């Protein structure tokens, strides 16, 4: 990471980043730029350096903030209409920690509204385009953040991953994207999607950068009672001797390019003396159904607070209190938000709770057990992130089920709460990025990053 110093000033780093952000305006990466604040903060850091004062580990490093993180700088929209306008009076924990180390937020990145989606097409502010192709989606929901890093606009970007929202756009754009163990980074001040699977993570260009960000941003937070005391357990750090591949994911729905990328990595590991183990994980095929029951339920619940009463948008059409609710919510939410909220209310409603919601939470137990068993046999698992590289804009947006199928390989990880890192894995002939993910047992986060680094060094050599 390039950090401000006597040689490179923070102002020049920030100016460069803002310049690139503007150059790629057509990609629709940012919801808003934070130019004034960013330049002011950069100047302050340069002055500190000039005075010989101590600066943070991220001094002057420009970064992009997914627009579902609360920050006092500018509007927080979650790419929705219903939070328009919403100027947060508080900062999310992640923003606080990054800024205390001197990182500078240059802009807020686009996402699927409320992070509902796998393409960043469901944004109130339009589609974000893939870093490699204007015809293709950026992936989602953290599409803007992935593209901002892939196009080298910023050194890193924040993301949220509820069912693949960091890893899939990372793999669609050829960068690292990390979803840590559930509870590693505080969710405080991040617009909630599904509380039991939401994870905060990052996009970077290297595993070292990722490690540094994890060290800075992890840890117990008194504002989030579901945070772990530390970033990893020492006991989980060990060299990978056995790596698993999931047989159940090897089917004709997976694109040949991705199959080949996986094969290459597997061969490479074998050469290194790593034993490859084929795993049977038959419950995983139900993970997507489980996910699309549990997550909408939590979504319906978490999005109840957007009602036009206390903040954000209130419909001007509303004539009475009932209409403030129903018109504000109907006008303020996008179609995909409505689908998920209604599905959530369906699976929670009386008469369906046991058959859907409770059943799904039981199935979740089986999925967790399947991972636990797998990690008795192997140190890590390597799988594709999604069945295909970036698809065409418009291809799936009106067919929710085919869009959901995009998440088939990413959601089981969120349901189990285990960490997973998306790593770049070459390109297709047309130049589209490919990615794979490495999955580890709970709280093996640091070991996972180390293993990923070994994978890269050797294959690059």
């Amino acid at each position, binding site marked *: 990471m390039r950090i401000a110093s006597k040689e490179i000033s923070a102002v020049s780093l920030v100016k460069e980043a803002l310049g690139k952000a503007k150059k790629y305006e057509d990609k629709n990466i940012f919801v808003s730029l934070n130019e004034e604040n960013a330049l002011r903060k950069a100047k302050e850091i340069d002055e500190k350096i000039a005075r010989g004062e101590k600066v943070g580990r991220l001094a002057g490093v420009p970064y992009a903030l997914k627009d579902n993180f*609360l920050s006092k700088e500018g509007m927080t929209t979650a790419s929705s209409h219903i939070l328009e306008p919403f100027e947060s009076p508080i900062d999310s924990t992640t923003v606080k920690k990054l800024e205390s180390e001197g990182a500078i937020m240059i802009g807020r990145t686009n996402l699927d509204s409320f992070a509902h989606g796998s393409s960043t097409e469901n944004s109130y502010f339009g589609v974000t385009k893939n870093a490699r192709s204007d015809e293709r989606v950026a992936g989602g929901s953290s599409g803007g953040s992935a593209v901002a890093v892939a196009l080298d606009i910023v050194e890193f970007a924040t993301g949220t991953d509820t069912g693949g929202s960091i890893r899939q756009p990372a793999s669609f754009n050829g960068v690292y994207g990390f979803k840590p163990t559930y509870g590693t980074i505080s969710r405080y001040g991040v617009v909630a999607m599904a509380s039991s699977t939401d994870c905060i993570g990052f996009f970077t260009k290297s595993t070292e950068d990722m490690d540094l960000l994890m060290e800075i941003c992890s840890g117990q937070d008194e*504002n989030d*009672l579901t945070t772990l005391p530390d970033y990893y357990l020492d006991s989980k750090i060990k060299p990978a001797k056995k790596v698993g591949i999931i047989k159940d994911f090897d089917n004709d729905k997976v694109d040949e390019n991705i199959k080949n990328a996986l094969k290459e990595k597997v061969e490479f590991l074998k050469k290194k003396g790593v034993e490859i183990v084929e795993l049977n994980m038959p419950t995983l095929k139900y993970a997507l159904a489980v996910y699309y029951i549990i997550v909408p339920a*939590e979504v319906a619940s978490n999005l109840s*607070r957007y009602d036009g009463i*206390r903040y954000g948008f209130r419909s001007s059409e509303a004539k009475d209190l009932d209409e403030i609710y129903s018109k504000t919510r109907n006008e303020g939410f996008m179609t995909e938000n409505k689908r998920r909220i209604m599905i959530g209310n369906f699976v929670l409603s009386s008469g369906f709770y046991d058959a859907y919601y409770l059943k799904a939470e039981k199935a979740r137990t089986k999925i967790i057990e399947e991972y636990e068993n797998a990690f008795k046999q192997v140190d890590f698992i390597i799988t594709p992130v999604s069945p295909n590289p970036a698809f065409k804009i418009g291809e799936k947006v009106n067919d929710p089920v085919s869009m959901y199928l995009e998440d088939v390989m990413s959601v089981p990880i969120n349901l189990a709460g285990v960490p997973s890192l998306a790593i770049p894995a070459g390109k297709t002939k047309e130049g589209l990025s490919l990615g794979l993910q490495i999955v580890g047992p709970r709280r093996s986060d640091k070991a996972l990053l180390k293993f990923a680094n070994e994978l890269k060094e050797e294959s690059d050599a």
Partner: protein
Amino acid sequence: MKYIPTIGIECHVQLSTKTKLFSEVDNDARGKEPNSCVSPVDYALPGMLPRLNGEAIKFAIRAGRAMNCEINASSRFDRKHYFYPDSPKGYQITQFYHPIIGEGYVELPDGKKIRIEHAHLEGDAGKLTHFDTYSLVDLNRVDTPLIEIVSMPDMHSAKDAHDYAKALWRLMCYAEVTNGDLYNGNMRFDVNVSLAEEGAAELGTRAEVKNLNSFKSVERAVEYEIKRQTKLLEKGEKIIQETRGWNDATGETTGQRSKEEAKDYRYMPEPDLPPINLSSEFIEEESKKLPLMPKDYKEKFTGKIADDTLEVLLDYPALMKKLAETKDVKRVSNWFASVLLAEEKSAEYLNDLPTAKQLDDLSEMTKKGELSSTGAKEVFLKFFDPEMGKRETKVIAKELNVIQENDLGELEKIVDEVLANPATKQAQEDFKNGQEKVIGFLVGQVMKASKGKANPSSAQEILRKKLA
């Protein structure tokens, strides 16, 4: 036809923790400006997560123990969804599936045991004030910790309901989990009333009267419902299952728009709060902190305080605690009873009780005869005087000039003076001639000469000796 009423009561108790259930703002909004006790969590900004107040868990354990309830080792929170401006999150955090307090019972004064089905922790709602064309929303009360206590339908009369409500109030006050201020809604009762023909196997359809905030209104609402439902049944009409409101002025319940479909709250486990799994040691430790309960005081004071007096005094938990600290419970309780019974200001008086030392000194001085019973009462009343109340008993007594003259030498001198006074000559003669009553006149003269400080019985004794 004879109908048997069956009554179950749900009671919401506001807990008197320092802070709210899910954020560190002041939990006591009485007398504070609207929305001045509201955190971003209570306001339900995006991305806000509940921060559970551990004290509420401990309060719940004490409350449960006060009702002889099991404390469930494993409990957790759930979300109950509904849209209303008093509910910023769009859901209430409650305990639907796994409440912290399990089965127990509350004993009524007549010995009846009312079973508790369960009790759970939850957050309160905000407050709306209605005007001509608009309403205003104050979120101060949002997520004040509550425990909701659900009774079994074990009551069968308005008196039962009244006694249960009152017993519950006492238990919660003695457990020190609530301020018990009914006027300010610290405890609110929802009463379910149904009638069934005598001998019927099943209960009748019930009506629920919501938001009663006094024992009297609980009693009256039940009385009214029994009458209303009896009339309907006698006419052959059906009781509709509905929620009814109570009008304290008219003494009537009225049906609130009955919703055709039952509300669907879509309960869901709260994913933002880790589960609660209490060790038996933890539960035991908290249980031990349960202060003395009304029944403990009854046991302690039987024989020392008359039953009916005790029953009155039991309504004042702080007073009972104070009595337990004093040496002469009989005397002290009498003073309190006479003050409380005689004065309208009783509640006010009880906000700031005298110290045990003040009360013990007062008992001691009375016992020694240094104070007459009237003098003692005067001093006692001054304990509640904002200016004098904090002084030592003796100092107050001196200031009031009510200490009796017990120095016999001194008293004898006064008696001699009185007897030497020609104005008493006739009386002395009359006494010697057997007119017993005259002694009173002479004692009076001694009292007068001593400016009221003489101990009348000592004065009489000396007089009798001298005139013998």
